[in-house]
């Protein structure tokens, strides 16, 4: 446990040195507060940027608070996921190429603790980013659109964070084998594929982790959460950590 804590502190220091602990949350806050602002100023933006017909401007209705909040979280599903996957892609692949992996494995450390420490550091960045981002988005939405249920916002952002964590875990898993960019691309493709399958066959694939964004929007609109996708996502994450640990363990030098 103490070794894991030391490794985690090392990973966190690395996140600070590469400015990841700062820039990723700042990007998420910008994405989060941009959505309610754009929705609020849409008539002005349309009027200023194009020759939109007056009838369109007249008929513009300010969307509801829950809708805007779901759209803000939707930004995290696209740009946010891309950012997280790109920020995580080199964490195992980079060490393998720079030779740090062999150096680490020469020490009496279990591969699981190395991978788990990296995963926990990425989880920290993710939670900080989603937490601050949704707080900013909810503040602006409540200010501009009206009342929001804070407990629903918290539950919805946690569900969304779990979906993003699936993508980050997949990136970590693939980066145990592949070079960083290939790992990120494969993880994003897999996540996009899952989302596509889930949107085409919603009835049969309600248990896929890709159902989490929809679930998060449903919770915002006042619905209840289901356990299926959550359990499936947790299993996927555990599988990713296990797989990455097994592969990392192969770099151990023969005694």
């Amino acid at each position, binding site marked *: 446990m103490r070794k894991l804590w030391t490794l985690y502190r090392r990973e966190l220091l690395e996140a600070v040195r590469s400015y*990841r602990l700062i820039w990723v949350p*700042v990007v998420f806050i910008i994405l989060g507060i941009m959505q309610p602002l754009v929705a609020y100023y849409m008539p002005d933006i349309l009027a200023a940027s194009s020759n939109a017909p007056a009838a369109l401007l007249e008929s513009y209705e300010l969307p509801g608070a829950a809708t805007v909040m779901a759209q803000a979280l939707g930004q995290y599903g696209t740009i946010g996921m891309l950012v997280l996957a790109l920020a995580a892609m080199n*964490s195992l692949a980079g060490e393998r190429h720079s030779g740090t992996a062999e150096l680490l494995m020469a020490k009496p450390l279990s591969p699981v603790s190395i991978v788990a420490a990296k995963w926990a550091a990425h989880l920290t960045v993710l939670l900080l980013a989603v937490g601050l981002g949704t707080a900013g988005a909810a503040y602006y939405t409540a200010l501009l659109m009206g009342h929001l249920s804070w407990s629903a916002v918290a539950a919805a952002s946690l569900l969304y964070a779990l979906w993003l964590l699936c993508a980050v875990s997949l990136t970590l898993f693939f980066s145990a084998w592949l070079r960083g960019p290939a790992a990120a691309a494969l993880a994003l493709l897999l996540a996009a594929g899952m989302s596509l399958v889930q949107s085409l066959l919603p009835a049969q694939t309600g248990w896929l982790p890709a159902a989490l964004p929809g679930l998060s929007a449903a919770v915002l609109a006042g619905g209840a959460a289901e356990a299926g996708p959550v359990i499936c996502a947790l299993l996927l994450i555990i599988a990713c950590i296990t797989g990455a640990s097994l592969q990392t363990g192969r770099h151990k030098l023969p005694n």
Partner: protein
Amino acid sequence: MNDINWGLIGPLLALQLLLAVIGLISLAKAEQVRGPRWMWVLFLVFGNLLGSIAYFTLGRRDL
């Protein structure tokens, strides 16, 4: 558009500025970057959010 509410827009601009400044500091300290440095300066100063994301994810060699 004359009555811009700076109380609403201000924090957004401040965060964009913060991101660009962190990027420029990181660029100044980085030993190696992909591509010419002046290009990344342009990305960070004029590229808004996407320019900064591009620098942090693609420009830095030591992520």
